[in-house]
Every structure is written in C-alpha cells, then in structure tokens.
C-alpha cells in the first residue's frame, strides 16, 4: 500500500524535525530567545560523527555518542559564552547574535571540511522490516526507534526529575525560580546540554540516512525547525513533537501528489499560515 509506505517516510522526516525543534522550544520556553544557532549545532553533530566514522571507527553508535556529547557541550558553550551576557538586552539582540553565530559556524565548517558533500560511511547492523504493504529499511527503523527512545527519556526527565521540574518552573517564572533557590544558571546550562545533544543526534541521523554531510545542511533545517516550534506553540514540547510529525506528514503527502508543483520546502510556510489563521498561538500554545 502506497499510503503506508508514505507514512514511514513521513515518520522518519518528522522524527528529525521533532528532535531539532525540541531543543529550540526548550530554549525559547525558558530564555525567550530565538536560538537560530541551534541548526548550526545540528550540523556540528553530523561533522563530529563524520570525523569519527572516517578516522576512528565505522561503528555508528560511537559516532552518535561522540556527536551528541560534542553538540551538547557546544550548546552549553554558546549559552555560557554568549547568551549569558546579553540576556537582559532587548530580545532582538540575542536573535541577531544567534544568526551571526549560525553564519559563523557554517563558514567554519566550509573552511575546515571544504564546501562539498562528504559521504557518511558508518556501519550498523539493524533489522529490516518487510511486510506486504510497506518496507522499513534499517536506517529508517533506527531513526524512528531512537527518536522514540529519546522522547521517552525526555518525558521522564521533564516530569519525574529535579531538573525537569526546575525547567518547568524556570519557563513559567524565571525570577521566581531563582527566588525559591533554583540555581537558574545551572538549570539553563543543563537545558542547553540536553537540547543541543538532541539536535546533534538529529544531525547524525540525517547524515547517516541521506549519506551526506555538507556545511549548509542546517539551513533548511533552521527555518523548518522554527515553523515547527511556532506551529506547536512556543515553548510547548509536546506541541513541537506533534507539529514536527504533522509537518512531515503534510510535506510527504503533498509532495507525492503529481499535480503539486509547489517547492516541497515551502510547504512548511503554507501549513504555518493555514494553522495560524485558526490558531494564532499555535497548536498547543499559550505564549
């Protein structure tokens, strides 16, 4: 069945959208910053993964862990080294700074790794699912399963742990969270660590899936992730996950229609306009 096969494609694409958007929405939820450089972190994950698989080992898991750790630390560095000092400025200041960091990161990748595409020669033994109706390749299964695991872990951290509760408190009232003894700085740094690690994971998964890594691979991702975050309602993690899947579904199905001539990467904005007409705060938003 064509429909089920398309659904598999949508699920894979939606998983990557969700993983990136989660970090963005976490940062926005607490600091109210539009963290454009997050897409640069996504690319960083892919390049660190690439370094591991070309120079160290072909083992995918090693690459994944290395890429996530590097991305997480890079996220903390961006917060502690840059945003931390401009948090009290008008919101436009961190936004512009963030765009600058993103552009600088892309140039850095171009200078160091060259402006061309690299293949991503990782090896992974993962099962393949073949049914009469649809096929799930090992890479697709990996992405769907890993995303599911990440989401479960995230759900647990957010709802059952100290830092999760601290994040929720911070996103509702940052000043008051400090007043009741939450070490806000630390909580925010951990927030960047986790969100950035997820973006790095998304970068590696996509690099592996499409077998390509290139300096500007985060560009389309950057604006799509914003569409997802706005669609889901700023700051709502559940909203971002659902909006990521929704966007992927719409893109996949509209893109598969023969008469649909519109560029596929512009569908995100059509969907955004359509949803905001009826729900100005996004699907789960309260702003």
């Amino acid at each position: 069945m064509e429909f089920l096969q398309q659904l598999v494609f949508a699920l894979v694409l939606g998983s990557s959208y969700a993983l990136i958007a989660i970090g963005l929405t976490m940062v926005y939820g607490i600091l109210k910053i539009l963290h454009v450089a997050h897409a640069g972190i996504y690319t960083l994950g892919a390049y660190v993964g690439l370094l591991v698989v070309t120079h160290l080992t072909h083992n995918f898991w090693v690459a994944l862990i290395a890429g996530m750790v590097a991305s997480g630390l890079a996220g903390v560095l961006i917060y502690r080294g840059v945003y931390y000092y401009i948090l009290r400025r008008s919101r436009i200041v961190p936004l512009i700074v963030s765009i600058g960091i993103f552009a600088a990161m892309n140039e850095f990748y171009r200078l160091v790794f060259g402006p061309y595409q690299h293949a991503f020669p990782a090896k992974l033994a993962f099962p393949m699912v073949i049914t009469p109706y649809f096929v799930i390749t090992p890479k697709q299964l990996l992405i769907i399963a890993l995303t599911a695991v990440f989401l479960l872990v995230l759900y647990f951290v957010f709802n059952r742990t100290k830092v999760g509760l601290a994040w929720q408190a911070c996103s509702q009232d940052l000043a008051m969270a400090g007043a009741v003894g939450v070490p806000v700085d630390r909580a925010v740094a951990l927030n960047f660590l986790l969100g950035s690690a997820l973006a790095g994971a998304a970068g590696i998964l996509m690099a592996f899936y499409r077998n390509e890594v290139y300096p500007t691979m985060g560009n389309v991702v950057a604006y799509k992730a914003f569409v997802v975050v706005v669609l889901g309602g700023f700051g709502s993690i559940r909203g971002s996950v659902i909006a990521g899947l929704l966007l992927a579904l719409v893109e996949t199905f509209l893109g598969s229609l023969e008469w649909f001539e519109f560029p596929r990467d512009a569908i995100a904005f059509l969907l955004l306009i359509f949803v905001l007409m009826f729900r100005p705060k996004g699907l789960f938003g309260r702003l």
Partner: protein
Amino acid sequence: MGSEELLVTEGLTKDFGGLRAVDHVDLTVHRGEIHGIIGPNGAGKTTLFNLITGYLRPTEGKVTFKGRRIDGLPPHRIVYLGIARTFQIVRPFTELSVLENVLVAWGHRHYGGIGPFLPYASERRHAMEILEEVGLADRAHLPAGTLPIGYQRRLEIARAMALEPELMLLDEPAAGLTEEEIVGLKGLVRGLVERGITVILVEHRMTFVMDICGVITVLDHGRVIAEGTPEEVAHDPAVIEAYLGSADAAG
C-alpha cells in the same frame, strides 16, 4: 524572646535617582522573634526587603546575617545562607501542582553532580509534611493557579519553608485576605516561630501586626522613626503624626 542578633543592618541606604527610598536604616532582628515593619505607603518597606534579600544593591551601608556580610550577594546565594522571602504579589508556578511548587524549592540543595537527573523520592514526603502544616495537603495535586488567593499565600509560605530558612521575610502576607483567613495566617506565622524560624514581616493590616509581632519598627520616608513593642509604638507621637499626616494617601 531570643537574644542572639540574627540580622543586622547598619546605615542601610538606597537611592533611586534623586529619591532616597531607604535612609540610613539600622535594624537589629533577634533570633526567635516576629519583627514587624510598618509605615505609610512609600515608606521604603519593600525596598528594605529587597536590599536584605539581594534583589537590590544598597547605595550605602551593610547587611549582616549571622555575623556574615551578605549585601551584594545574588538572591539565590542569600537563599542558601538561610533567608527566604515571600512577595507582596503572589506568584506561584501556576501550571505546576501545589506539591510541585514546594518540591521545586525543596530541590534547591540537590542540584550537584548527577542529582538533577534523579527522580524525586523522599523529597515528596518532606514536601507533603510542609503542605500539611500550612493546611494545603488535601489540595496538593491541584494546579497552583486554581487556588484562591488565601491559599496561594499559604503556598508562598510553604515554598519559603521548603528552603529551610532561619529567617523568613513576609511581604504583606495578609493583603487581600478575609478576617477568617487572617486568623489562620496568625497560626501559621506562630507555627514558623515554633519551628525555629525568625520572621520579619511588612504589613498594612494593623490589627494583625499589633497582635502577632513582638517588636515593631516604624519607617517613614525611608527612615526609622520608632521602634519598640506594639504598645510603645502605638502611643509614639512621631508614629501617630506619620500616619495622620499621610492619612489621605494611605486611605
């Protein structure tokens, strides 16, 4: 009444532009007392609180807590040293449950190492004990935003209790409460003292202050104009004049 000096301010002064909101205030709070701070509107009471709790830096003067200077420290450090406060305008985390509001505060000493990624366990029991003490146990799982104002004030105090302070600053705890709720609040504040917490409170509701405080300091235009027991203060000519003089403004 204890005799150890817990909190001392010396020459504490705060200027906002040309306005001197707090003017060389010398305040001594002894361990175990309930110390009231009263004064007409704009007398500098809340500014004084903000200076003590690190939300404002003094222009001049110093604040000493248990013999250690704390002026200039950021608010969360002062919390760790043992001073908790509530705010004039209640601000619970509206979308967290009542219990979670207290847990957030209780969690403050567990953020080291991998602590943050561990689930809450025994902390829940401690938080429930506090909720029982303030009479919110049966509402523990409601979203805090749905509580009526009187209960939200209790929640503020519960949150401050979870910080296990030695000194608690209550900023107008009786504001907006009914007479009945005030009776409950009195019991609650006395309970704090029984727990060994020293209390400083700013308040407009005179009967409440006179009833509960052992010592009262009166501020007017940022200066201390009187200090003493409720009876002494109530009969102090300077105090009477300050209040009568601003009777229109104070309503």
